[in-house]
């Protein structure tokens, strides 16, 4: 008797693997139309990497966020919704170039990233520090104190540490190359082990 109501409600109509071709078409069409109308404020995707799953997010201006799994990708997306815009869609193709360059980096085929970046999540002194970081060459390291001196504020060692710890674009902006004065790696937004992996990768690359 209630079969008809169940059918209308969509009971048992989902594919066993949870995929739905009509829903996939809807997403693709929505992304296309949203981009056309300038409504895709944040596009994102995740990629696998030797240091775990990475979340990549971009605004029309450029890459705005790279996040490690330990940062909790859902929490990162929620923060982007609040700080940038809630108009956020999973749109993997829009991050293909960033994904390719990261893949090249992990494969020792790339030493510097050539991507438009959107640094709106970093302000003031933190932003100054981040803008200076790409000058630290691949395979090299710099101490927090050295970096503070280089950005013209030698007493701001702690602030440099904070800038690195809150880097919205780890890997692409190489805060992993900033280490302690005694040569030990120090903390990292992706975890101390990840920092070691990256420093090793760059030494062997």
């Amino acid at each position, binding site marked *: 008797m209630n*079969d*008809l*109501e169940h*059918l*209308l*409600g*969509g009971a048992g*109509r*989902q*594919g066993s693997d949870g995929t*739905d071709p*009509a*829903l996939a*078409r*809807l*997403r693709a*069409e*929505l992304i296309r*139309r*949203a981009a056309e*109308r300038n*409504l895709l404020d*944040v596009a*994102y995707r995740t990629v696998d990497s030797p240091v775990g799953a990475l979340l990549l997010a971009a605004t029309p201006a450029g890459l705005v966020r790279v996040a490690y799994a330990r940062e909790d990708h859902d929490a990162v*997306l*929620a923060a*982007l*919704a*609040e700080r940038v*815009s*809630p*108009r*956020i*869609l*999973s749109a993997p193709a829009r991050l293909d170039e960033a994904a390719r360059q990261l893949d090249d980096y992990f494969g020792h085929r790339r030493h510097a990233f050539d991507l438009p970046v959107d640094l709106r999540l970093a302000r003031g002194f933190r932003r100054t520090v981040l803008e200076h970081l790409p000058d630290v060459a691949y395979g090299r390291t710099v101490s927090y104190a050295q970096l503070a001196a280089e950005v013209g504020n030698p007493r701001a060692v702690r602030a440099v540490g904070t800038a690195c710890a809150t880097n919205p674009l780890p890997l692409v902006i190489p805060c992993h190359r900033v280490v302690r004065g005694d040569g030990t790696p120090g903390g990292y937004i992706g975890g101390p082990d990840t920092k070691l992996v990256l420093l090793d990768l760059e030494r062997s690359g």
Partner: protein
Amino acid sequence: MAVVTPLTVPASARRRANARRRGPGPTSRIVAVARWSVVSLPPFDRVVTEHGRVVLRVCRALLPQHDAEDAAADTFLAALEAYPRLRPDSDVKAWLVTIAHRKAVDVLRRRTRHAVPVAEVPERPDDRQPTTPDERLWLAVRALPDKQRHAVAYHYVADMAYAEVAAVMGTTEAAARRNAADGIKALRRGYPPDPPSTEETTP
């Protein structure tokens, strides 16, 4: 929807006033802030994940497949545009269905304006000869009179309460209930039961 936030509920206002009188209370302010931050808007992608299927099905119940997918994409595009202004505690499904309703009515109106008047809206080949149970079902729903079709789509397909259905259709709750009941009755008469399950299990 009343424009009332947790912070302006009289009870909490009273609690805050009491807290002020007592000096810095232990929890009242923090509780208010925590409740407020819980209701910020999630990324729009979650709206698509959570409600994409139901909006597609509602559109399928109202329009032929090609038009339905177009209307569903249009619905989400309009929703995406308006999303930053949506009150975080809104009923998102009802909001989307309201937009879908308008999109579907637009499509149907355009058709009746431009097309030669015929008894049945011309269907694409995939709709004329429905091959899956879903398509046969949608064909039967679309053959219902307008009000019944809408009421069935919103109450049975979108699983909305009659009060919400009435709000979407701009009618009374009693009329929405009657339309849905009449629609289901007509479907029971006209929609043949599923054939043996072989068709069901093949993708």
